[in-house]
């Protein structure tokens, strides 16, 4: 039965919203901060509570919000028995941890941060349990890795904390990556990323060819998260976290996420041989290995960590069995493990907090000093051992019962024997936890005299130990919860029945063996411990560090090889790749036969072509003589302009030739400050290779251009030709396109040009005030300057030319709409006219006569163009729609007025400002290097010279 509930997304988002609060509330005090952390948790629990009765009756609540439907990703949530059990566990333990952490953390710890991280993590975990979309689930999955990284590394000042956090993130993050692959395969098999669809398609999935790869990838994610062998090593290192974090992450949440996922995917993936042999075997190995190592750990938290590893192995093994009864046992043990393990971690934290050590060898006799803690610790540890009347016993017996029925590779003894062995060690380390910590005589060498903590600190573990006993004595209490979750896991209605006494069966005998063996092992602990310490064992952290070190070294090596800072090499690789890829696609695409007739080739064109080609070759050959190369390159610009004229592009020719002029001036200015020759640095082989790449690129582009020109292509230009005069009011179609049809483009382009000008100006400012400025002042740039005066002829000529050039510029601007010309060209022409003044009369003299700042010109230009465009809004038309009309003012002829001309004025001003600002900025370098300035209109002032002569004559010289 499905029912929608809008509460689900709210529950899922609550912790994330709540996470914003503690960081702020910490200013109101630590208790207030903790209380506000509890609020979203309690709210979510209450909301879940309203849905719980329905879930127990078998209703599945769903909620869907479309997110990225193209990807199959939607924020879909659903709540069934399994999800409800986990959600309650996460929130319930989260609440207890909030309380515990309030007392555990010291005043020096940033508590607001802690609670923020805690809520983030809680939200991520909750999201995993509630997701109905596997892509969404993956997002939450990664979020748990990230937020647990923050939690584990909470004590940033401890190197262990940082390293542990990094290791946890690396291992679980890598597993998460594998799982993404697996989930995507799964989604492809089913054709839907919705969990409910996937769970219903179990048979289809298991029959698919890609079942095994998907299974292995998903299990990699689950195993890394749940610390299964051989990925178990990160969990003990994550114990460097504060104890509340360990208690939360490593009992109820983070490590259970892997188990949850296996349980969640159980109907879709379980029941095959592959599932059994991978999951059950890994679980079995982990269970035994974890239990054995736990016995020899002296650190209380390390002991509990390996015990957790062992219990997670147990759960994995049960799920791996693939039977419904085993699944029920797994669900029951998840619940029991949560109650006793969270309490045990908190107990260990209390001991550490009070005695200032967690080393079992330095503890003992605490029962008399901290009786309440000792009682809690004993109850929960007995449950961990699987002693009757505690809840751990019930699920452990179910496990042994299932193990006794299971044969591995036709061997009926292997699984039961190893399961019993694991249990023996489990009993041993549990009893060691009790007797070596709380038992024995009181010592006098504790680092700090222990006593029971305040109520707030032991309240949470005490509550949990009440559950331990309640379920242990009255197992039927847990039945409805387990029934509900097991039904969801197996997909079949389950009515489990738990009892303390099952009669004498294999499981009971195995339990008894375990308890007896455990006691014996504990008694023999000292000699065994010595033997264990004497045996060489692989150190997981050393292996991990070595592996990471090698990986980092390999990556750095690769990066250094591929990305060594030699941009010339990247360019070579890039050019060669473009040619090769271009050739491949060129060959692959079917190209039709040429459709255009070739134009005749007049002799004049051949001469122009020859000059261009010759100039290109000369530039390449003489590029080391920089000045010569600069002179030759201007020939190319000239020939290109001539070509434009010949091939019906007068506007381009005008623009090209004016740009050519300013470019050469710019490069000349720059060359003044750069070395005048380029040394030979690359080897002959390298030059040959470069030449090869260059020739290949040239041939390729020539072939492409030829193919293009000899074929007809469909064009949208007919529209422009037809509407230029009728709609735009101009006969120069190129200009009308620029200022009207594609005015928006032009608007963007003048802004880019303006920004380039401003950027150059700003760069120059920075440069001149830094070491470069010092270098300039220290330079001899001024020394090799010719000390000739500004040539008088040129000064006079340019001054005469200025008004003429201005008139030409204005003329070109005004005719632009109907004849070749326009704002771009006019801006360049006026720039050149002004530049001539700079060259002829000197920088300072010209600057002093300049009334308008070039920055301002750029701004005014952009504003005029923009306002013109906006003017169209007044008429209710879109941005940059133009208007034109004809005006008759006697006595002149009728003439046209168009808003496009106003826009073109903006273009003109912006181009003028940008070009002038660029060259002006570069010229400042010269001034900075100590060039002297002529303050007079001309360096050579005849009147002054005569006066001096007169004066000298009077003095009789």
């Amino acid at each position, binding site marked *: 039965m499905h029912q929608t509930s809008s509460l689900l997304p709210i529950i899922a988002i609550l912790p994330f919203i709540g996470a914003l609060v503690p960081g702020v509330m910490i200013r109101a005090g630590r208790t207030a901060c903790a209380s506000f952390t509890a609020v979203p948790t309690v709210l979510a629990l209450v909301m879940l509570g309203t849905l719980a009765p329905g879930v127990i009756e078998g209703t599945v609540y769903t909620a869907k919000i479309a997110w990225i439907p193209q990807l199959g990703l939607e924020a879909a949530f659903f709540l069934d028995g399994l999800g409800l059990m986990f959600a309650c566990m996460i929130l319930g333990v989260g609440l207890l941890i909030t309380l515990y952490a309030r007392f555990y953390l010291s005043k020096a710890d940033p508590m607001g941060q802690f609670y923020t991280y805690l809520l983030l993590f809680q939200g991520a975990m909750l999201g995993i349990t509630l997701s109905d979309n596997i892509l969404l689930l993956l997002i939450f999955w990664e979020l748990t890795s990230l937020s647990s990284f923050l939690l584990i590394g909470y004590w940033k000042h401890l190197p262990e904390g940082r390293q542990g956090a990094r290791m946890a993130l690396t291992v679980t993050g890598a597993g998460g990556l594998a799982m993404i692959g697996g989930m995507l395969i799964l989604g492809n098999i089913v054709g839907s990323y919705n969990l409910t669809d996937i769970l219903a398609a179990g048979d289809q999935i298991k029959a698919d060819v890609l079942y095994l790869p998907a299974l292995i990838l998903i299990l990699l994610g689950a195993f890394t998260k749940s610390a299964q062998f051989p990925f178990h090593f990160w969990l003990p290192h994550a114990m460097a976290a504060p104890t509340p974090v360990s208690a939360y992450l490593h009992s109820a949440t983070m490590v259970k996420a892997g188990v949850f996922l296996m349980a969640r995917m159980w109907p879709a993936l379980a029941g095959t041989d592959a599932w059994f042999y991978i999951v059950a075997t890994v679980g079995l190995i982990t269970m035994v290995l974890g239990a054995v190592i736990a016995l020899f750990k002296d650190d209380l938290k390390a002991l509990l960590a390996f015990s957790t590893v062992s219990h997670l192995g147990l759960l994995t093994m049960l799920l791996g069995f693939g039977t419904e009864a085993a699944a029920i046992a797994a669900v029951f043990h998840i619940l029991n493990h949560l109650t006793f393990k969270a309490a045990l971690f908190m107990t260990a934290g209390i001991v550490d907090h009070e005695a200032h050590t967690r080393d079992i060898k330095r503890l003992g006799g605490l029962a008399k000093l901290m009786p309440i803690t000792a009682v809690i610790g004993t109850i929960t540890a007995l449950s961990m051992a699987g002693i009757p009347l505690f809840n751990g016993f019930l699920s452990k017996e179910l496990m042994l019962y299932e193990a006794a029925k299971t044969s591995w590779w036709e061997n009926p003894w292997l699984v039961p024997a190893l399961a019993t062995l694991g249990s023996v060690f489990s009993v041993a380390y549990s009893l060691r936890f009790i007797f070596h910590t709380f038992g024995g005589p009181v010592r006098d060498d504790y680092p700090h005299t222990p006593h029971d903590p305040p109520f707030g600190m032991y309240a949470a573990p005490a509550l949990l130990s009440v559950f331990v006993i309640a379920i242990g004595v009255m197992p039927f209490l847990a039945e409805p919860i387990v029934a509900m979750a097991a039904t969801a896991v197996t997909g079949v209605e389950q009515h489990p029945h738990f009892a303390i006494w099952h009669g004498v069966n294999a499981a009971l005998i195995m339990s008894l063996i375990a308890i007896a063996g455990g006691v014996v092992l504990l008694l023999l602990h000292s000699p065994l411990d010595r033997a264990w310490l004497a045996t060489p064992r692989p150190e997981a952290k050393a292996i991990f560090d070595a592996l990471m070190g090698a990986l980092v070294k390999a990556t750095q090596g690769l990066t250094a090889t591929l990305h*060594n800072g*030699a941009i010339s090499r990247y*360019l070579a690789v890039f050019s060669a790749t473009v040619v090769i890829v271009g050739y491949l696609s060129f060959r692959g695409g079917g190209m039709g036969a040429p459709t255009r007739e070739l*134009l005749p080739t007049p002799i004049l064109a051949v001469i122009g*072509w020859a000059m*261009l*080609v010759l100039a290109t*070759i000369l*530039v390449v050959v003489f*590029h080391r003589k920089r000045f010569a190369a600069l002179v030759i390159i201007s020939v190319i610009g000239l020939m*290109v302009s001539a070509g434009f004229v010949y*091939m*019906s*592009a*007068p*506007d*381009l020719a005008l*623009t*090209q030739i004016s*740009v050519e002029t*300013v*470019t050469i001036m*710019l*490069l000349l200015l*720059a060359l003044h*400050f*750069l*070395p005048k020759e380029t*040394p030979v640095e690359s080897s002959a082989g390298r030059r040959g290779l470069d030449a090869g*790449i*260059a020739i290949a*690129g*040239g*041939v390729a582009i020539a*072939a492409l*251009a*030829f193919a293009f*020109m000899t074929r007809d292509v469909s*064009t949208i230009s007919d529209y422009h030709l037809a509407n230029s005069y009728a709609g735009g009011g101009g*006969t*120069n179609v*190129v200009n009308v396109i620029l200022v009207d049809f594609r005015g928006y*483009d*032009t608007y963007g*382009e003048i802004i880019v040009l303006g920004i*380039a*000008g401003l950027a150059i100006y700003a*760069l*120059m400012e920075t*440069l001149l005030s830094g*070491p470069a400025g*010092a*270098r*300039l002042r220290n*330079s*001899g740039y001024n020394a090799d300057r010719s000390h000739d005066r500004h040539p008088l002829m040129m000064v006079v000529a340019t001054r005469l030319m200025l008004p003429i050039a201005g008139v030409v510029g204005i003329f070109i601007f005004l005719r632009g709409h109907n004849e070749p010309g326009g704002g*771009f060209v006019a801006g360049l022409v006026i720039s050149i006219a002004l530049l001539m003044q700079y060259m002829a009369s000197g920088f300072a003299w010209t*600057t002093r006569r300049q009334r308008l700042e070039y920055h301002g010109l750029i701004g005014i230009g952009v504003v005029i163009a923009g306002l013109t465009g906006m003017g169209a809004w007044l008429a209710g038309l879109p941005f940059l729609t133009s208007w034109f009309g004809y005006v008759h003012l006697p006595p002149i002829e009728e003439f046209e007025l168009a808003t496009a001309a106003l826009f073109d004025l903006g273009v003109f001003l912006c181009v003028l400002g940008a070009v002038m600002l*660029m060259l002006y900025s570069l010229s400042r370098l010269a*001034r900075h290097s100590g060039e002297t300035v002529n303050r007079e209109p001309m360096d050579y002032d005849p009147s002054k010279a005569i006066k001096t002569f007169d004066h000298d004559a009077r003095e009789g010289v």
Partner: protein
Amino acid sequence: MEALVASAIGFLTAGGIYLILRLRVFAVVLGLSLLSYAVNVFLFSTGGLRINAAPILDKYNDAAVYTDPLPQALVLTAIVISFGMTAVLVMFALGAYLEAGNDKIDMTEVEPDAEAPTVDGIALDMSAEPTEDRA
């Protein structure tokens, strides 16, 4: 005619690529200029070549043939923008040369050239900057 234009584009491109693969800034600037010519002519040529058919409308001749105006409009702005780009590049080159003391484009080594002006022994006094005499 088409072959001439295509081969000219090819020569410009080849020269441009060879020069941008050199190790000094000035050669790279020259190479980029050549490439700009090549790209602009290439873009222009995509409209197809026509002689005596400038896209200036003849109001009195409806049968007149015109060349494709759109590539011309695109190339016109491209020419101006490529000037802006060259200017920014030259600025970078100058800045790098004056800051680092060499005009190499690769960053594998950063030793100043012997001929480059030195910074040594000069106090980096910002107030020592000569004032522009605009007053």
